[in-house]
């Protein structure tokens, strides 16, 4: 029972965080210099027309009133109308969300599978030449700008070798019966490959380094020494005891990584013209389409906060010291 309570209290805390982020977002978009409508008000409009437009978006009311309207709308899932597309922001964002999630999760799965195995291997081979060479290399991948890596991969595999398309999610003119058909098509995979690889190369460093240093820590624990005194096989000691314990924090870092990745996607999606939330955010900001930018930002923030919560819960779930308190 106490677990439910703990989860509830953490959820409540994060709901407050979400509210704070929403408020910051509102203030950013309302208090920043410049009339948000400026880009969309045709100079030929009459003053009445301009005011009508302002009223349509609720921008003529006092700030506090706008804030409560905004909060009320959010609670109903209403994110407003995009200036540019003249369609509900929510619809547009939910249409783009799957693309972003597919890119994020596919790259992270690859990154974590590789990172965990390689990290465990490097811990096992600690002090070897392989490890001494690998660690700086891994650190270098963490130091790479993701978009630069994307550029290099594009230049080599797309423009030079021509193995993969340069951007988008589907060939021009291609049509699919359903989203499912699109996502399972071979074309889609070839479009997904480069951006996912880019993100995966960048992301594998975290689980790798974490797994390695956890393994090294755990290998020094008394229970690992005891497992050796018990005469258990090396495999049992390393895999069942050391790796099993080292894996815990790595698993929870996955959820956090999803949040981080979503932020990083902003640039990579732009490079590969991947129609996701991040690219939409960049385009909307460039085009001063504030409702859309605000909506995309909010969506990303929601996922980030949600993932922080999931990380906490995952930790509590996977560690018997907490789940069986």
């Amino acid at each position, binding site marked *: 029972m106490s677990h439910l309570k703990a989860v509830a209290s953490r959820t409540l805390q994060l709901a407050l965080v979400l509210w704070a982020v929403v408020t910051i977002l509102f203030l950013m978009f309302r208090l920043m210099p410049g009339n948000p409508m400026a880009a969309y008000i045709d100079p030929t409009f009459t003053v009445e027309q301009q005011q009508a437009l302002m009223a349509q978006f609720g921008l003529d009311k006092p700030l506090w009133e706008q804030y409560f309207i905004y909060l009320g709308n959010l609670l109903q899932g209403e994110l407003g109308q995009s200036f540019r597309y003249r369609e509900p922001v929510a619809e547009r964002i939910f249409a783009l969300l799957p693309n972003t999630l597919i890119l994020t999760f596919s790259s992270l799965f690859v990154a974590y599978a590789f990172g965990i195995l390689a990290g465990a291997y490097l811990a096992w081979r600690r002090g070897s030449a392989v490890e001494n060479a690998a660690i700086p290399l891994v650190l270098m991948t963490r130091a790479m700008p993701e978009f630069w890596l994307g550029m290099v991969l594009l230049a080599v595999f797309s423009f030079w070798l021509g193995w993969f398309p340069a951007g988008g999610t589907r060939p021009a003119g291609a049509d699919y019966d359903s989203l499912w058909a699109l996502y399972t098509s071979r074309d889609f995979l070839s479009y997904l490959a480069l951006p996912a690889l880019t993100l995966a190369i960048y992301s594998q460093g975290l689980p790798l380094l974490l797994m390695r240093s956890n393994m090294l820590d755990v290998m020094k624990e*008394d229970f690992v*020494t005891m497992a050796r*005194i018990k*005469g258990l096989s090396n495999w049992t000691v390393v895999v*069942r005891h050391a790796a099993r314990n080292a894996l815990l924090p790595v698993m929870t870092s996955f959820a956090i990584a999803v949040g981080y990745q979503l932020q990083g996607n902003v640039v990579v999606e732009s490079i590969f013209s991947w129609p996701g939330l991040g690219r939409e955010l960049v385009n909307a900001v460039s085009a001063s389409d504030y409702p859309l930018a605000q909506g995309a930002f909010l969506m990303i923030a929601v996922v980030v906060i949600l993932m922080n919560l999931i990380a906490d819960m995952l930790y509590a779930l996977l560690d*018997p010291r907490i789940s*069986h308190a």
Partner: protein
Amino acid sequence: MTANLLSVRDLKVSYRVGNGHIDAVDGASFDVPRGSIVGLVGESGCGKTTVARALTRVIADNARITGGQILFDGKDIAAIPERQMNALRWRDIAFIPQSAMNSLDPVYTVEYQLNEVLRRRGGLSAREARMRCESLFEMVGIEKGRLRDYPHQFSGGMRQRVAIALALALNPKLVIADEPVTALDVIVQRQILDQLRELQTMLGISVILVTHDISVVAYICDRTVVMYAGRVAEAGPMAGVLTRPAHPYTMGLRNAFPDLAGAASGTLTPIDGAPPNLAEPPPGCRFAPRCPFSIEVCSTESPPLAEIVPDHRVACHRASEAPVLREIAARTETWLAHA
């Protein structure tokens, strides 16, 4: 079949530290007769824990057994290949660690960890292992319902009982207990010692009990081995060593220990100074710098571990004068004058 289950002869263990090395154990010799509890006693850094671990041959990465023999059941297990040694571990030589909390894997239930040993090392079937788990828990006095619990769900004393159950799982001949009750409160400490003694008698096994506490030795051990600075100072039957100590260090320890059974007005007497730095041990007897009885030869020559009365060995140049020294050592001034 020899009378001694274990005979350690001139054991040397050294640690690599920086560019040099430290001989944490420098020629330790003692015997463990079958069916007895032997207390390995000494202060921190005297090498007692290193000896205990060396007997399992699972030692720190930077440690190495550099010499001597460990005769277990007549076979020198310091010299056998690792594969043969591994076969002996836990089936013949089991271990009870100081902190059961850190020595049990936190992510598995106690039952899993018992099963792991019973099945992987003992070759029991799943059904046999389950029955054995239950009977082991019964032996150490824990309800079998708690088998499914995780280590952190037990109290310190209970966890130590789990560690005992784990050590007895495969009916070993020798159990090495490394400070098994040090972290516990006096009441639980006493209860665990009672349990250990009861099981040892019932199963007829031998136990090496590593401790810094003479009272623990006095309470439970048949024999004792007193270590100082990597060497054995004195070894023999517990009562003999404690009531008629022949090494000045043991005599000094007796004076330094508060005794609830003694008179209220007694004065404790410390042994002045501190144990030597093992990176640069003094020549000759390592206790000589703190010893009120040291003579010239003490600082030049290491005293051999010699039998003074049957079964009681001492490493002291003045061992023959022991009865006299004992009387002088009982006076506080002896130790103060030296300081």
